[in-house]
């Protein structure tokens, strides 16, 4: 499924956060969104996953405007893993993941064996099958994030939106989570902080600064010393290892 945003504009009062952002992710493409804090990455993604509605512009899924879809329909098209998932109440891990089935359910429909099978499979994929009966709040940050990913997987959507999903995770879990996502072979738009991680996983990158897209292209095209200096105001070196993977060193 293709995701496209067209000239998205959003302002909080007089502060323009997004100044006409157009981007797109092709079918099964892994698109990264990079940029400094406050550049509008999260705000843009929130417009895509409908928590915010843009003042102007529109988001299209396979050419169909989100405004013409109800929330259930859009939740059957894209799953979301956002930054904060903190609950005041104790759900079990299985219950949390089972909620991923809600967009497929009618008002009074009960969960059936198929739903439980999908939940078990999703937990299996993220390596959390043994934790199904555990209380969500007793898990570590990395485990919680994997459970939220499992919930998005249980939605069985052709797209995933990730809003800095690996924040607060150690390197093991960052790599593990993104590898799982990469293997799914679905359309992904992800905001990513770490440029090396972005270079590793993304097919294409968009660079946001002050609510505008200032560069786009493959990681090799985008991540240059000049651009990094311009965007982040730090000096860097781009090196290639023996396997031909690029690495960015910062000074």
């Amino acid at each position, binding site marked *: 499924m293709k995701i496209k945003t067209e000239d998205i504009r959003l302002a909080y009062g007089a502060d323009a956060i997004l100044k006409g952002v157009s981007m797109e992710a092709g079918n099964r493409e892994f698109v990264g969104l990079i940029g400094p804090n406050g550049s509008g990455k999260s705000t843009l993604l929130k417009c895509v*996953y*409908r*928590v915010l509605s843009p003042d102007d512009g529109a988001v299209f899924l396979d050419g169909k405007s989100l405004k013409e879809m109800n*929330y*259930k*329909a*859009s*939740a*059957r098209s*894209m*799953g*979301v893993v*956002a930054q904060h*998932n*903190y*609950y*005041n*109440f*104790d*759900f*079990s891990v*299985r*219950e949390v993941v089972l*909620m*991923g089935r*809600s*967009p497929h*359910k009618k*008002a*009074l429909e009960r969960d059936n064996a198929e739903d439980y099978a999908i939940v078990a499979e999703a937990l299996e994929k993220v*390596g959390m099958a043994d934790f199904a*009966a*555990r*209380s969500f*709040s*007793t898990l*570590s940050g990395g485990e919680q994030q994997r459970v939220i990913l499992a*919930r998005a997987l249980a*939605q069985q959507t052709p797209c995933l939106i990730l809003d800095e999903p690996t924040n607060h995770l150690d390197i093991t879990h960052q790599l593990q989570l993104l590898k799982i996502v990469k293997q799914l072979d679905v359309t992904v738009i992800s905001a990513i902080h770490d440029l090396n991680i972005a270079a590793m996983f993304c097919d294409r990158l968009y660079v946001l600064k002050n609510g505008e897209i200032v560069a786009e292209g493959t990681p090799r095209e985008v991540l240059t010393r000049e651009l990094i200096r311009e965007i982040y105001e730090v000096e860097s070196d781009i090196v290639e290892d023996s396997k031909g993977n690029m690495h960015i060193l910062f000074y």
Partner: protein
Amino acid sequence: MKKRDSGRGNRVGLSSLGFTTVLIVLLALLVFSILASITFGNADLSVKEVYSVVAYELLHIRKFSDFAEGAVHDVVWIIRFPRVILALCVGMGLAVCGVVMQAVVKNPLADPYILGISSGASLGATIGVLFGFGALFGANSVGVMAFLGAMGTSFLVLFIANIGGRSNAGKLILAGMAVSSVCSAIGNFAIYIVNNKNATTEIMFWTMGSLAGAKWQRVAVLLPVILIGTLIFWSQFRNLNLMLLGDEASITLGTDLHRARNLYMILSSLMVGFAVYAAGTIGFVGLIIPHAVRMIFGTDHRRLVPLCALVGAIFLIWADVGCRVILKNSEMPIGILVSIIGAPCFIYLMVRRSYGFGGGRG
């Protein structure tokens, strides 16, 4: 992957088989509680007499027609039985509305009165007692005034929370607190100005809650409201679960909760309003029963709602028995008893089970 101490496992929830068993056991316990509790009271009646009356009224067995009227019949059928059913209704209603309100405002400290219902009801009752307004509503004019006060404040709170954009949990809680304190202030001002000792005592008794005023006519209204409301909320388990995840996560899961939230609050206010009409404000039940049930059976609302309904009903039936039995020739206000029994049980559960209240880890 990190190795973990299995002792920290803290498993929650029940298998569906376990849930059905618990439900049946609680239902049986509820029936037992109803039948057992009518044998307690100040009038000295034998168990045989009590059940003869019940058998006659429910099954119309000729053999017991001696018990069709007279003092024994009146005590059991006119006084005790409706009172037990009233306790059932109020306990069930408060517990279920407590669960719903905690989900709606996403706050474990919420109770059924969070929307200012108790202060609104008190204000209504105060006006009823002091100024005799509402005398046109007949025998329970104070109850009717309380109902109107309760509904009035909850609609006002809902209205305020929806001004300037969509309501959310924070706005609801704050609006509820603000309206609450205005209502108490006005009520206290009225009591202060009128300075009528008898009226003040009456208001105080009323705000402590009592099931003594039970009558079949009132129960006949309350029982269907509470049962239908409980069933409706049970059917809404999916939305109630989503509410605890928050509005943003719910939208990504395909549900915009804005309308559901307002509808649930209106239905819940209606149920609590009727409970207040029949029995005054009884605190604590709507707060502790949901937590106690959650600690044992988990947070999933498809189980929580029916289990809370049954546990709330059973709890209040026995609390009311306590009220009738503890003091000789007098009755203890049920609000006091509920707090005295409820709080220690609650603390015990809280200490014994690891349980994430206001978040943090269990």
